[in-house]
C-alpha cells in the first residue's frame, strides 16, 4: 500500500543548518520528501514539505516534534490528499510593483480572480528602503479568459500608481 502524504509546516527564526537538520531527521525516520517550498520571510525560515511517511499523523508528530523543538522551530503536520506529478502549466506571468501600501495584494489578486485567473504561484517581497518601501510581486497561473481581460482588470491598480506587466508564458517543449 502506498504511504500517506503529509504536509509538514515548519517555521522559526532563521539560522544556518535548519534545512539540513530537519530533513536529516525526516530521512532518519524513513520519510520520503516530495515537493517543497522553503524560503526566508522577514527573518524567519519557513518550510512546507510534502512528506511521505509510513505511519499516522500522531506518530509523525511524535518523532519530528523533539527535533523541531530543539531547533526552536514550530511544526505543524496535516494529512493531505495529494500526489506528485500534479503540476499545471502556467500560461501567464503578472509582475507587479509599487510604493508599498496596505491592500496591494488584495486589490490586484481580487481584480485578477474576477478576470478568470487561477493562481498557481505567487511570491512577493518588500524591497526599497525602510523610508520608501517597494512592494514587488510575481504571480503565475492560468488565464481562463485570456491576457487582455487580465490587463483590463488591472487598469484601476495602474491608475493608482502600481506598475503591472502581464506577459504570456510560452513554454518551449524541445
Amino acid at each position, binding site marked *: 500500500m502506498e504511504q500517506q502524504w503529509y504536509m509538514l509546516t515548519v517555521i522559526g527564526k532563521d539560522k544556518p543548518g535548519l534545512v539540513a537538520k530537519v530533513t536529516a531527521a525526516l530521512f532518519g525516520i524513513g520519510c520520503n520528501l516530495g515537493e517543497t517550498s522553503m524560503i526566508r520571510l522577514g527573518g524567519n525560515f519557513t518550510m512546507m514539505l510534502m512528506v511521505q511517511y509510513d505511519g499516522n499523523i500522531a506518530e509523525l508528530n511524535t518523532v519530528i516534534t523533539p527535533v523541531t523543538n530543539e531547533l526552536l522551530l514550530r511544526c505543524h503536520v496535516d494529512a493531505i490528499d495529494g500526489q506528485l506529478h500534479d503540476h499545471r502549466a502556467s500560461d501567464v506571468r503578472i509582475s507587479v510593483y509599487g510604493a508599498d501600501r496596505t491592500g496591494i495584494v488584495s486589490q490586484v489578486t481580487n481584480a485578477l480572480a474576477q478576470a478568470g485567473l487561477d493562481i498557481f504561484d505567487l511570491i512577493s517581497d518588500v524591497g526599497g528602503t525602510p523610508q520608501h518601501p517597494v512592494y514587488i510581486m510575481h504571480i503565475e497561473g492560468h488565464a481562463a479568459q485570456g491576457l487582455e481581460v487580465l490587463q483590463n482588470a488591472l487598469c484601476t491598480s495602474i491608475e493608482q500608481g502600481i506598475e503591472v506587466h502581464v506577459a504570456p508564458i510560452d513554454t*518551449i517543449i524541445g
Partner: protein
Amino acid sequence: MALLNVLVVPDERLKQVSQPVEQFDSSLRDFIQDLEQTMRAGPGGVGIAAAQVAHFERIVIVDVSSKPNIKHHGCLVLINPEITQWEGMVQGREGCMSVPDYTGNVIRAKSIQLTAYDKFGAKQSYHCEGYEARAIQHEVDHLDGTLFLDRVVSRRTDIFKRKHYQ
C-alpha cells in the same frame, strides 16, 4: 516511419556529446523522418535533437510554425548546426520531452545567426529570433550533452521591462 524511444533523465546518455554527420544519404533522411514523427508525437513538441533518441549525430529539428504571430522558418532540419552570433538576452520558460513534468526559466539569446546543413548536404544560414531562436538554442544544447536543467534560473526572480530608459 517509426516512433523512436525518447531518453528521459536521469539517463546518462543525455549528457553525451554528439558527433558531426558525415554521410548525407538515404539512411540519414529516413532517420530524420522518424525523428520528426517522434517530435510531433510529443505533446506540444516544437523541437527535438537526435541525441534525445540515443542517436549521437548532430541533427536537430525545430518547427515552431504552430505558434501564432511569430517569425519562423517553418520546419527546420539542422544538421551540424553552428550558432555563429548571439544577440540580446531574454528569460523564457522551457520544458523538454526528456525531462517530463517539469518546466523552468532559462536565459537565452534573443536572436541568433546560425549555419547548418540541410538533409541533402547543402549549407544554409539563418537568422532566427524569439521563440524559434530559443527552441534552436535548446536543441543545439542537446548535441553538447546540455539539458535546460543545466541552465535553469530561479523562478523567484523576474525581469521587469522598463518603460523608460532616460
